[in-house]
């Protein structure tokens, strides 16, 4: 019997986590292409739906929050304020839902062929992200109509906001897509998270309202603003809406025009939360990945 030099061998089924995705760029591109081209297959209006849903959602919120609850009297350019936050929360909700179901919906592949399984949640997130781009385009056009002038700072804030949401969702998506294989309860938990996400960030109201209400219990506001989604939404508000309200003697600046106090710390806390979610997500994913094929 010859002696075996193990250094020349691979251990089947061991990947290098999210980093593997770079080696599989081409496959990732095809998987994204597949999901985007299939999403509206056999539908008459097709990609139009990517515009219809956010528009209807926007109108509903505008009528209820803006008109009935009279938010637009308290805030200049409320439609723009609302929409600039809404698109980002939609991005979070869509990508999170898509990534959570990604392993289960690729059951056939996961059970039969070994691929770095991180590819599936990532392809789902990027696929859902492509539906955010038309919304962002609408937001930019609307802002320009309101007289918005893009600046380097605002573009930086937009990119930072999108980056924060995406990296946060990668962490959460890895976590929930892995858990979802063995416990389908995960998709129900994610459903609840999505509802909470819509209301727990200042898009239908302002951070200053929360600040006023929580004056006696400051740590509550600290937690509230350490949410990466809340920080990203404030980035978007500043980038699009922040420069537009005209401050005169007769129309004083709205309370939330500036950054919340201690905002620098909230940004740091949010980044810490994101890193934590990525580390935990990847760790849990690797633990569960070993039994994906037998649990599906």
């Amino acid at each position, binding site marked *: 019997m*010859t002696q*075996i030099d193990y250094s020349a061998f691979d251990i089947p*089924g061991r990947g290098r986590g999210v980093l593997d995705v770079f080696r599989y760029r081409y*496959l990732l591109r095809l998987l994204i292409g597949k999901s985007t081209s299939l999403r509206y297959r*056999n539908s008459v209006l097709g990609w139009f739906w990517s515009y219809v849903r956010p528009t209807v959602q926007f109108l509903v919120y505008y009528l209820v929050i803006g008109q009935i609850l009279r938010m637009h009297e308290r805030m200049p350019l409320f439609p723009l304020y609302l929409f600039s936050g809404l698109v980002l929360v939609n991005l979070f909700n869509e990508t999170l839902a898509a990534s959570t179901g990604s392993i289960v919906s690729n059951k056939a*592949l996961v059970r*039969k*062929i*070994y691929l770095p399984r991180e590819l599936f949640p990532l392809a789902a997130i990027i696929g859902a992200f492509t539906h955010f781009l038309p919304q962002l385009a609408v937001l930019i056009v609307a802002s320009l109509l309101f007289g918005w002038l893009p600046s380097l700072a605002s573009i930086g804030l937009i990119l930072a906001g999108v980056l924060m949401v995406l990296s946060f969702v990668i962490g959460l998506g890895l976590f929930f897509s892995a858990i979802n294989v063995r416990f389908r309860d995960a998709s129900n938990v994610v459903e609840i998270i999505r509802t909470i996400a819509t209301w727990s960030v200042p898009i239908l109201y302002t951070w200053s309202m929360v600040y006023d209400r929580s004056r006696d219990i400051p740590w509550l506001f600290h937690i509230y603003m350490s949410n990466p989604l809340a920080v990203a939404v404030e980035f978007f508000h500043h980038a699009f809406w922040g420069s537009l309200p005209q401050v005169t003697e007769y129309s004083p600046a709205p309370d939330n025009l500036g950054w919340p106090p201690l905002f620098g710390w909230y940004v740091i806390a949010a980044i810490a939360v994101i890193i934590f979610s990525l580390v935990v997500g990847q760790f849990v994913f690797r633990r569960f990945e070993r039994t994906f094929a037998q649990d599906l």
Partner: protein
Amino acid sequence: MPKNTTPQQQPRIVVENVSKWFNKRSSRSMKDAFINLVRRRPVRSTQFQALDGVSFTIGAGESVAVMGLNGSGKSTTLKLVSGVLEPDEGRVFTRGKVAGLIEVGAGFHPELTGRENVFLNAAILGMSEKETKARFDEIVAFSEIEDFIDQEVKHYSSGMFMRLAFSVAIHVPLDVLLVDEVLAVGDAPFRAKCNAKLKELAGQGVTMMVVSHSKGQVKQLCTRGIVIRKGKVVFDGPIAEALEALESS
């Protein structure tokens, strides 16, 4: 014994003392668990041992059949080598590029056209864009469905579907090919063509690990047989004797 370092003489697949257990879940939810508890049935999952200390080495260029009755653990063995499953005990090593004809067509999507599916599946099996483009015509020619390549796969007959899927899998450049019962489908002429293609690959030095119930195919293709019974290797040797060992088991 001198240490052997030339890659040609290194084995392609090493399976060392591998054991694998599967959970048999008794309760599927908290409600089930409660009912089982009340009725004094097992609540926690019980374990079922699928493989028990399996060891073998497959050298470069060898064609090995893994045989056994249903439920003996042969497909589990194959899945461990492909990386889909991980061993609970023991180690598995492979050298070179491994790809499997394991239920070909797993990556096919019915709503995509044949052409799109070829590119997608080739990528899933590890081919680059350039390699796929270079071999595309060959793949389509082998599958004999030239006229339908731009149709959606859901309109294919099951035979056409299998032919295209098989054709993609067989054209992936690889060092180790895992074959799992795929050749039970397709009509006789196509089956003969596939067997010829597999023989050709074996002739080119591709290492093969075949799981099959078809004695004829195994005899044609493989030189060595491993017989597994209830998760244990009971025979490992020349194919003719392996078939006899399988009969008597």
